[in-house]
């Protein structure tokens, strides 16, 4: 079996930042904040976060915060909850949550909760359980979860539960592994995992593993490295991860590496990108691949970062 080309992946991630003028990065410039999260978290898991200029990243993040408190995907872009979470996560990576206006940020997220407990992504009102996860995850990291109506938020998520035990974007929406991660993650962070039918959902999730060892996101779809994160983290949170073959999945992810130039792709021999590189590395971390920092399945941050937030007296005081 191939081994993880860790050094090449580090070099690849660092090189993406420098190719600002490529067509790909122009098309993707609106989600640079997500990209920063993917790249930097992958670097941290690979043990190479110290190669990054912290001040540069932090000041860029600050420049993406709007008066409303929310963050845009890049300077000049509108605020949206999708990028707000990435900003919070990256700041958490660097233990720099104290540099932003947490009150304003909190009010922004709180303002997006709707009467039925759901969350809008921004002022324009699109509702999706992804946004429920994001709101809950952000506020929990900031230790401000009490500012929203958690009970209603949980109720809304449960109203999106399907006959297969999975969850959709809105009530009636089809189950999808990415969406399931969001809902399971939100329920995990709010201590509500008992509301999940773990055996039913676990069976659906474990059947995402196809013959090649890779995981797909819905029945009868192709496998994709990104589901190594969405499916695997969900299986871990409901304690059913032993229902798939770890060895086969590790092999699939390693087969998706570009061993020459670094980076990981969706499927073997496809073009690599930073999104799949992160999900591949994070998946391997969840699979306890040697040499990688463990990652937390609910907050999607390295375990040491999460533990620092929740089990260190000083950090609680700083954020309070």
């Amino acid at each position, binding site marked *: 079996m191939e081994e993880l080309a860790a050094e090449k992946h580090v070099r690849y991630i660092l090189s993406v930042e420098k190719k600002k*003028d*490529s*067509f*790909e990065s*122009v*098309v993707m*410039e*609106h*989600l640079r904040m997500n990209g920063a999260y993917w790249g930097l978290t992958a670097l941290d898991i690979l043990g190479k976060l110290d190669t990054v200029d912290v001040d540069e990243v932090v000041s860029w993040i600050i420049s993406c915060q709007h008066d409303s408190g929310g963050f845009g995907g890049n300077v*000049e872009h*509108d605020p*949206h909850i999708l990028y707000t979470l990435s900003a919070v996560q990256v700041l958490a990576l660097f233990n720099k949550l104290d540099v932003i206006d947490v009150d304003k940020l909190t009010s922004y997220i709180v303002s997006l909760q709707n009467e039925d407990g759901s969350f809008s992504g*921004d002022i*324009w009102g*699109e509702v999706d359980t992804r946004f429920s996860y994001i709101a809950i995850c952000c506020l929990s990291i900031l230790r401000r979860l009490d500012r929203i109506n958690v009970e209603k938020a949980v109720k809304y998520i*449960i109203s999106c539960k*399907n*006959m*297969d035990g999975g969850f959709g*974007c*809105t009530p009636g*929406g*089809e*189950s999808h592994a990415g969406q399931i991660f969001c809902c399971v993650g939100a329920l*995990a*962070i*709010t*201590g509500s*995992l*008992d*509301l999940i039918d773990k055996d*039913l959902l676990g069976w*659906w999730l*474990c059947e995402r593993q196809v013959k090649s060892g890779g995981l797909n996101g*819905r*029945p*009868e779809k192709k496998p994709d490295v990104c589901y190594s994160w969405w499916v695997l983290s969900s299986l*871990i*949170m*409901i304690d059913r991860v*032993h*229902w*798939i*073959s770890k060895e086969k999945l590790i092999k699939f992810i390693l087969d998706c590496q570009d061993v020459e130039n670094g980076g990981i792709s*969706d499927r073997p021999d*496809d*073009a*690599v990108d930073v*999104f*799949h590189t992160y999900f591949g590395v994070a998946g391997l*971390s969840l699979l*306890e691949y040697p040499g990688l920092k463990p*990652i937390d*399945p609910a907050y999607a941050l390295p375990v*040491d970062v*999460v533990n620092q937030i*929740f*089990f*260190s*007296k000083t950090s609680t005081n700083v954020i309070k």
Partner: protein
Amino acid sequence: MHGQPRKPLKQEDESLLSAKAAKLRTLQSQFFANHRDRIYTQEALDLSAKLLETNPECYTAWNYRKLAVQHNLSRSDPDYVAFLFHQELKLVENALRKNYKSYGAWYHRKWVLSKGHSSIDDELRLLNGFQKADSRNFHAWNYRRFVTSLMKRSDEDELIYTEEVIGENFSNYSAWHNRSVLLSNLFKSKAEEFPLEEKVLQEYEHVRSAIFTDPDDQSGWFYHLWLIDLTVKNYAPLLVSSWPSHGSNITLNGNNCIYGCGLSLLNSTLSDTRTLPVILYFNQAVEGINLSTVAVKSELLKEDLVWKPLSTNNSSTAQVWGAYLNLGNMELEQSKTYSIKITIGHSMGIVSSNGYQYGDPYQIAFKLCVQTASTKPVEEQGGKLTSWKDNNFQKIDHFEDSDSIVSADLHIPTTSDWCMKAIEEEITTFRDLLSEEKCKIGKLSLARLLTALDLITHQHDKRKNHTEEVLKLYTDLMELDPTHSLYYKDEHSLVLLKQITSSRESLLPYCCYYKDATEANTSYVCLRLQNLSLSRMGSFENLLWVQMLDLSHNDLRSIEGLEAMQLLSSLNLSHNKFGSFTVLGPLRSLKSLKVLDISYNKIGSHSIDTRRYLCSSPLANTEVFAWDRFEILCGSFSATKFWEAFLIFESLNLTDLNATGNAVADENFTSFIVKVLPTLKWLNSEELA
């Protein structure tokens, strides 16, 4: 980037792309200038349209379009308004042709339509086009549900649509899913026109043809399981078992030790605090167990019972509820019998999580009496080291008549004939399928159907059950589908446990007297389920009476559900596969637990903790970390390192703990645990000074 081949670009492609990139960048910066300066002229709109047609993912541009619509709406000319919205719809259509997975584009269309200025007549036609091109696009399906509800199209019509789609190609999970949503709605809203029975029988036939056409195609698998559930599941909450069970006699000796119910084991915590646990076990999680829904009548009752959900999460719903009857300082008269009556469902209010009410009230009556004081005070537990060696256990020939080892099934309503017939028919057809083809879904479905049949026939008569066949099917599946072998093994364990715990007779071979070699007087009943290759625990509803449990030498990774066993005082979990302390979360609610053996497991050898979020903790926002206590007890240790052990053990009163043979159990841990557990007398089989 999805599905793009990994290959270096040709020279001409590269220059072409970089020209495209430059063009797009110019477009973007012009757009940002307009957005900043709030310019919403037609020219500016055209520019943003161009940007979105090239890159539909540029969400800020969709926001800009919405601002422009709001701005331009102030011009009240109705023709212009119509044009304005038409322009937006056209743009969305173009953007979707570029990328039909663009969240921003789909939402923009919803936003425009919900303004109410545009006709929705064309929407289904447009959708049909997209759904033909990609019949699994979940954006399109979500949008379809939005549009059909906006145009008030009936669920029946949509049901026909899913039939057509499935008719063209059964391999369409999205359509099966939508069918389950529509049918669930119809069962609720039009129960008379849509009788469950008739519909479910039709659906079995429908999905069967999908599964039988290609058994490896998963499209119908989950739908079929859903149908089985609809056929046999009791949606209303039911009491499955209780402790004490109805009609039981509990004897306390002079030292207030609990005897009877097959228990000879002294439960010292219970007698120390002079409390008696009462456990209610339901078929599903319920809420609303309180003084008004559960009435208790007894002269022993001096204060109101406080019902608590026995759950490792901190929710208000739970499958198991417990209360402690406080005997307080009451002087119990020798040889007198006290009766206790508990009425469950005394008033309305016990509700399942999906809103079903508990039915008729049910009464549990049991008796409590006090025996003559024993001649000598029973030695406090923990005075001696508990040894789990075989020679300390003695087989039991028969139970005493007064023992009620199993809490028998309570009033489970009889199932309708159609349910039985439906399951039997499915069993026949799946047997036919398997005679032609050894497919995994065939075996798995058959195993599930037979289990379902046993569940419902159990209530009618105790005909021959199918346990042996089901166990064999799961064993076959482990071999047939090794990737998921541990799923089948877990199912296998649950079926095996159901069989073992189903009656007093079946339990007898697994029950032993625990005999302390040096103390011939005291002998306790121990349930020994060791060495059964169990990968999962279950059937807790039949084990509420157990005080001493040996689960050693199995393949257990979790003890999910063990929190129901409130009488448990000694537990052996050694030689299993427990990977973390958080796995032991259920123990936190076991007030009587004194002896715990977790030796030879894998605690500390995994970097990823799979129970981290199933255990109540600050991470799950279910409790605040007790800093004060932590600092007093073990301030010199790092909380980020020891928080799990602290959370689990801090609330326990163990006297005897064995943790040897785990990666975590180094000297550091030993000195930590002694501080967290001041009650400890024995650690790793050695007496503490």
